[in-house]
């Protein structure tokens, strides 16, 4: 099993959700986060006082999927989240040891 952590533009969330539903991925967790990579921040001015805002709002999508589906999920996700501009985000793939469904103690990929 692998965990996919994708940091994407907030306005791309709907497209990513639809794309995942389209290939049969049912479970995901969404977190509103702030951060920055290579994308520069922007300047805000309040009554003459300037602020550099470099931590920008992003959405982090987390999914745990079967090993066999990693390539398909990653390419679909990247395609849905891509605008082609700097700031589109990143996808990380992590190994997962086990998964347990709390309701009935299912284990491994059966719990996904």
């Amino acid at each position, binding site marked *: 099993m692998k965990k996919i952590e994708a940091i994407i533009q907030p306005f791309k969330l709907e497209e990513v959700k639809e794309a995942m539903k389209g290939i049969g991925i049912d479970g995901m967790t969404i977190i509103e986060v702030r951060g920055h990579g290579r994308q520069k921040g922007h300047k*805000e*001015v*309040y*009554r*003459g*006082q300037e*602020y550099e*805002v470099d931590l920008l709002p992003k959405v982090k999508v987390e999914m745990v999927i079967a090993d066999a589906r990693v390539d398909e999920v990653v390419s679909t996700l990247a395609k849905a989240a891509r605008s082609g501009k700097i700031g589109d985000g990143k996808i990380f793939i992590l190994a997962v040891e086990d998964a347990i469904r709390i309701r009935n103690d299912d284990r491994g990929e059966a719990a996904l």
Partner: protein
Amino acid sequence: MKAMKTFQPAALSLLLLQGLAYAQAPVDLNKKVADLEAAVKSAQTSGDNAWMLASCALVLLMTGPGLALFYGGLVRRKNVLSTMMHSFILMALATVIWAVYGYSMAFGEGNAFFGGTQYLFLKGVGIEPNGDYAATIPHQTFMVFQLMFAIITPALISGAYAERIKFSAMVVYTTLWMTIVYFPMAHMVWGKGGLLNAFLGGTIPSFDFAGGTVVHITSGVSALVAAIYLKPRLGYMQEPMRPHSLVLSVIGAGLLWFGWFGFNAGSALSAGGLATSAFVATHFGAAAAMIGWVLAEWMKNGKPSVLGAISGCVAGLVAITPASGFVTPMSALLIGFAAGIFCFVMVTIVKMKLGYDDSLDAFGVHGAGGTLGAILTGVFATNLVNNALKDPSGNPLPLGLVDGNPGQILNQAIGAGIAIALGAVGSFVCLKIADLVCGLRVTEDQEVEGLDLAMHGEEGYNLES
């Protein structure tokens, strides 16, 4: 035509009969006149009092929630409740002080500087009008209208000490400040026999229709002194201190504008033409100032900001406050436009140069805008709008420069100067005493944690509950 012909003799005979009746019963005629006079008086009182009671409610709305929202939106989210509380608690604190001794100190007959003891505990302040102040409304209406001003004035200062003052210190400071700054200043300008009262025997007649000196200069200058005394917030100019919700501030500014109609037009103390004139000047002043501020900002920073728009309208409302009731709509536009640009420069350029941390610009808007408005009132005041001042033969006296009375500008400057001096010295004394009594500033840990939790044990936004 035919009908009229037949009607005329009938009407004539009716008149004759009436005349006969009057001649036979002169006592009835006198009684009728007296009844008529009483009815007219009662009708005027009803009209004036209806507007004045509405104005009282409008002015209270300026503090809560108007100012509470305006200031609350400008601070960081960890201080939103404490900042709102600075305004809201005054609706209670100032009211009690006013009832016990405040009204008497401000509006009792005393000397040129403060009132006497005659209205302590509101003794004798009843339904009968007080002819010196407002002959057509109950004395209690006048008293409660003035109370609403006493509530908002100290609340304006809270913009300077927001995000770092102890709540206990704020209560002590404000109580002292009302006693040694606000009540005397209100007496000097509006009280019977006050030094600056142009209408009730002041030796330096100065025009302040609705509180440019009393409310805005005193609070603005006191705010500056408080900001300097308290020193900047932790991390000022190093860490971001963006307004946490300009949305709240926009709602607050809208409510301030709305309430200001009661503040200024209500200061006519009646519901006639003078109230209309003040109402119109108020609105025009706010509108022109918003345009002035936004234009200046657009040219300097390249973007017209929403914070600029709402700050601009408040600056205009401040500057037009002393002038409303004395100036024409066109003069109001000029005063407002000048105030919008002047306050923009004060808040964005002068403050940065001087380096004091007036968190929410109580001085840059109220102190600066109030002073400009007081001076410009001396320029634009005209007896075409307000002819209450007359020479012995009954002709209206010239008021400001536009009426050919340039000396009024000096009187206005003296009035402003007294308000500045009293605000500065008075505020310093009150800060010093509050500092000795309970310490002014929260600890560093509390300031980092935020005043909402540290002072009140609450948070403004509990999104998970």
